[in-house]
């Protein structure tokens, strides 16, 4: 709170913060409250950083609007400060941001790999995603398929063991299958997509990729069944996608229609 005066005042008040005051501010979960990326938020955070120059969460927040709004140079320097002051908390999140928003797989992978030894015997989940799963995506996109499979399998085994197969997110099956597919092992790919569909029976992406495998095996009859399922599920909204960015290997209706046409013409 800040007051100003239009009438002459002989002595204006200025508070001196005690260590006790600063300790109590430091415990606050929320420093004010302003919409992300607004001048109001910026000035709040800068005021906070005057008192707590090593507060990682303030630095991190300063960079988020630049990230979401497509300006990497307005994101990275701030997030870098957050990592500098609290690497255990923010390395994994930075890796997540760089992976999804900037598609810099080498740099994201380095963040995940640097984080892992800082938290021994623990699988980190920045932004609610396992770093093993995200390491799998990095290796897949870098064309390092064996390493990708290693991490997708590690992630799937860990999830099955800790939360049970029914609670494993669809995309781990999808990316494991795509990794096999890109390696040319269509049978293993098919098994991964079918495994995913046993757990999640309504998923356009798994159906689309399964149809691709079946077509390449020459099983056009079943390929047609699955591509039509993919089409219906896609229309109903049972499809891959995420907020802010396109997902990896996101399926679009023209892809499904092209494959359906290809299958139907055989």
């Amino acid at each position, binding site marked *: *709170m800040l*007051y100003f005066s239009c009438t002459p005042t002989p002595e204006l008040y*200025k*508070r001196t913060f005690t260590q006790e005051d600063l300790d109590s501010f430091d415990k606050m979960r929320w420093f004010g409250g302003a919409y992300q990326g607004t001048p109001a938020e*910026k000035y*709040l955070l800068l005021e906070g950083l005057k008192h707590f120059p090593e507060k990682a969460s303030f630095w991190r927040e300063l960079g988020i609007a630049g990230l979401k709004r*497509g300006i990497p140079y307005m*994101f990275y320097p701030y997030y870098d400060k957050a990592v500098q002051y609290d690497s255990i908390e923010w390395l994994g999140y930075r890796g997540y941001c760089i992976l999804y928003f*900037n598609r810099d797989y080498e740099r994201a992978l380095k963040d995940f790999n640097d984080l892992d030894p800082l938290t021994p015997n623990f699988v980190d989940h920045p932004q609610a995603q396992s770093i093993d799963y995200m390491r799998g995506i990095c290796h897949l996109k870098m064309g390092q398929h064996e390493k990708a499979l290693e991490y997708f399998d590690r992630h799937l085994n860990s999830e099955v063991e800790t939360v049970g197969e029914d609670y494993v997110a669809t995309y781990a099956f999808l990316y494991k299958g795509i990794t096999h597919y890109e390696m040319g092992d269509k049978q293993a790919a098919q098994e991964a997509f079918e495994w995913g569909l046993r757990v999640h029976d309504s998923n356009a992406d798994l159906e689309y990729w399964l149809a691709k495998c079946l077509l390449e095996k020459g099983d056009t009859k079943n390929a047609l069944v699955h591509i039509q399922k993919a089409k219906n599920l896609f229309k109903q909204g049972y499809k891959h996608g995420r*907020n802010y960015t396109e997902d990896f290997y996101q399926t679009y209706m023209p892809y499904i229609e092209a494959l359906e046409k290809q299958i139907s013409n055989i």
Partner: protein
Amino acid sequence: MKLLDENRLEEIRYNSAMEKEYYRLYSFKDNKMNLEKEMGWFHFDSCVTQIKNASVVNWGNPQDSFKIVRAFSSGRDLDIVRTQNTIQDTIVEGYSSKMFHSQLENDWIFEGDSVHYSFDTKLIYAKGMGLFESISKGEQNTRHMQLVEQIPWETFSKMKDHGTKRVAYIDPNNTIDDHSNFKLCDKEDYIVDYYNGDPPAGVVGGKPVIWDLLDKHLDPSKIQGQSGYMTFRFVVNCNGEAGRFMIEETDLDFKQTTFSQASKDHLYEIMKKIENYQATKLQYKENVDAYVYITFKMKDGKIIELLP
């Protein structure tokens, strides 16, 4: 704050960026400070206040209550009832003060639904200074405000003239397109970001549409040797029209850079071939204007990714 005359006080409350947030006019009569007028301006919203019982503080009668309804332009109403319970004399940092304890009941009302919040509130007024501290304890959180510094108006005027804009603001006077025929549907301050609405604002058909255009029209010689993130930022208005294009340039190490003019001109020419844009829609609202971006990520003269 400004004393207009013996009995009237004008208060303008500013947010942390020194942008006007509330205008309030108070009067003083019979040991009471009464709210006579209130208006508010916020991010994407504003309010006018209907005053039902104007007594903000009552030095004479501890049991008085204050009732107002803030009607927001977004369609919500905030019904506020603050009932004063006790008044205590106190000293704060050497200043003779009065502490007003009250119970605050807030009801947010929107299209027949309402959400209720209760707060135990403490207001401390210091003699000669006005409101010194306020603490509102709710079930889930506590809001605590303290006077930090008094500054002369002249100093404040200079501070508030900072000219800082939102992150990723597009200055309409500094764009690469002639947008004289492009019209916003609402005020510039009400342009949202592409991810605020559902569906998000962007290109109808998504990235495959842009990849197709690149397949057909990209001349690799025009982007030869270029590396980094070339981001076209623009506005998609409520009618799905695009305008106010500008370019942000970042290298692969996340530092600001400059791409060749030929590469920028060429990719902008390809951008201009996009025919259909999706306007975004906020919950409970019609389509709105939105900031959108498309990034061409390049490495050694090749486009390796489209973002977001």
